[in-house]
């Protein structure tokens, strides 16, 4: 890590320093591939960028010193991600996984566990995945069945996870297991940080629509996890899972707005000037603006120490709406590059158009968000 001043920089100071550093190291930090690159190339680039940012001192801002960070408000992480994503150096969703995985460990794991592992994630030394969903457990997370059975100072895990992004590249997985009765729902779930190379753990990559093996199934066959790797209390895993949300919906969403900003920029760069395309670009810009304004308020509330709750479902719907709108417009203005890509740049548009369809599915579907808004924010009572 670089030098550690006594107090964290302001947002403006950090941005100035970071932009200067990114400009000075532009050649060194640029992706070595054209277009989107393969998944393996993206992973290598992600870890390389994190490593360079860590060594230069930028990656530690906004993380507590107890977990190897340099302190300061979370907005500093939002700025670092924004600048890195807007320059197209990394895949935004992959970069932002740190935002949900690291805080969970910091808040719920033993201080020793957090101090040992969080710096590895921040510095690009390791990649982690998130083992929540199962074949029978999508929107209804509390129904999960992958079982962990206590056995002295360790746990024996049997079951299956699915949609566990990037598992084949991950050293570790934040895993939710069933430790209570099958009927215990959210009261009988326990979280662990499991090593992906543990015997009995098998990963089978799954191709997503665009052809990339981003997803995976993970099978657990008598996988042994030491109790020291438990994250949070026994049967306290629901709180761990829910604690991700404020991070996903503040810093990680701000990173996503930077991705959308850069892709709308690419749309605008070669958009025709007639009324029809101006109207489409204007609509996409307005959607993105509504999202950025909401997301900025959320990041600020988070840094003021306010509890983020159901109102962030609004941000979630706005992210999905803006993302799908921007790629709908990208396709409307140049349909051929999505339909019949001719080069790596076209292929990237096609991949991202397809990926944008999932924006209203992952992280809680659009329907789940609207259910939350109706019940919690509009007080419409039970269905």
């Amino acid at each position, binding site marked *: 890590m670089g030098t550690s001043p006594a107090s964290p920089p302001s*947002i403006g100071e950090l941005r100035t320093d970071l932009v200067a550093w990114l400009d000075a190291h532009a050649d060194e930090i640029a992706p070595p591939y054209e277009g989107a690159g393969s998944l393996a190339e993206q992973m290598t680039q992600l870890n390389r960028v994190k490593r360079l940012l860590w060594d230069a001192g930028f990656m530690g801002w906004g993380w507590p010193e107890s977990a190897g960070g340099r302190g300061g408000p979370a*907005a500093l992480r*939002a*700025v670092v991600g*924004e600048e890195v994503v807007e320059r197209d150096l990394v895949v935004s969703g992959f970069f932002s996984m740190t935002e949900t995985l690291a805080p969970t460990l910091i808040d719920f794991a033993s201080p020793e566990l957090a101090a040992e592992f969080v710096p590895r994630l921040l510095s690009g030394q390791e990649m982690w995945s998130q083992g929540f969903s199962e074949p029978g457990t999508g929107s209804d997370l509390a129904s999960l069945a992958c079982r962990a059975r206590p056995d002295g100072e360790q746990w024996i895990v049997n079951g299956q996870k699915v949609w566990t992004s990037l598992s084949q590249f991950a050293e570790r997985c934040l895993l939710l297991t069933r430790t209570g009765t099958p009927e215990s729902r959210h009261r009988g779930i326990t979280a662990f940080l499991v090593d992906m190379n543990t015997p009995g753990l098998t990963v089978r990559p799954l191709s997503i629509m665009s052809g990339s093996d981003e997803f995976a199934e993970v099978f657990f066959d008598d996988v042994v996890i030491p109790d020291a790797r438990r994250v949070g209390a026994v049967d306290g895993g629901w709180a761990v899972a829910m604690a991700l949300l404020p991070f996903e919906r503040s810093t990680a969403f*701000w990173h996503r707005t930077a991705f959308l*900003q850069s892709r*709308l*920029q690419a749309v*605008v*760069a070669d*958009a*025709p*000037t007639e*009324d029809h*395309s*101006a*109207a*489409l*670009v*204007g*609509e996409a*810009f*307005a959607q*993105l*603006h*509504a*999202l*950025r*304004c*909401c997301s*900025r*308020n959320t*990041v*600020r509330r988070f840094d003021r120490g306010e509890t983020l709750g159901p*109102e962030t479902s*609004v941000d979630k*719907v*706005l992210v999905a*709406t803006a993302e799908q709108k921007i790629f709908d417009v990208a396709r409307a203005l140049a349909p051929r590059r999505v339909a019949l890509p001719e080069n790596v740049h076209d292929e990237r548009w096609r991949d991202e158009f397809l990926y944008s369809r999932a924006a209203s599915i992952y992280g809680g579907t659009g*329907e789940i*968000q*609207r*259910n939350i*808004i*109706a*019940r919690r*924010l*509009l007080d*419409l*009572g*039970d*269905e």
Partner: protein
Amino acid sequence: MDTDDRELLSASVAAAIDPAAPSSINDAALDALGWGDMLAAEPIDAVGVVFGRLGAAAATADVLDDVVGCALGADAGAALVHPAWGRASPVGRDDSGLIGVAGQRIHEADVVHVVCADGLATVPADRLVADPPTGDTRWSPVRVDGDLTAADLTPVDGDVLSAAVTAARHALAHQLHGLAAGMLGLARQHAVDRVQFGRPIGSFQAVRHKLAETHVAIEGAAAALGAADDDPTPLTVDLARVVAGRAAADAGRHCQQVLAGIGFTRDHDFHRYLFAVIELDGLYGTTGLITQDLGRQLIAAGVVPRAVDL
């Protein structure tokens, strides 16, 4: 204005709206609250509160004249003729130096000030002709009988004029947001009260999701308005106006569907809101026109600006 001041003003404006005749607010009551002084001293806060409240009650007032008049340096209380409905900006002189003015008048007065591209034209009201003869709207389309010439104009700087257009759009954005929130309030109450198939219709997911969708649009507009209030540039204001206009249109569509039969009548208040949204959308540029103009600016510059930042 701090939060307490804003809330106090908001409550006072709400109290000035006569529940028996909510479609028009008493201008004298607004004046008694010190509206003119607030507009001069703290226009952003004052406009946000007053137009937001007007929207929430689907009320109208002459205050848009004050906002634009104040920005153009007209006397307090001056009656204006605004650019014709659907026009984004005022008309200029044609090749022969004449101005064929058609516009929107909001309130009656002996002398009116016509907002033109080069300035304000002062015209006796008897030169105004209804055009077309007004139907069932609160806005009076008018034109000036005969052409205006440069001699009729008090020149106004181009920057001042665009600031006045921005001020109008800022006010209208707050009003449209208020209207959207007002419609959601009506539809939400109906969803809770109205029983069909033995249960409140608000227990049906199809209804809930329409209201949730409306809430998201309104929150987006509120956030965009917050950004415009913090830093009222033409860009942030136009964006807020477009986002609020879309929220009002979405709210109109979803809330009317939830209100169903009763929302289609004049017995229910909803119709006042829908009329107001449809009518206001044409003042100083429609949502569609401003959206297209924003897109055109982006394409011309080749850049998507970060209109707000952390």
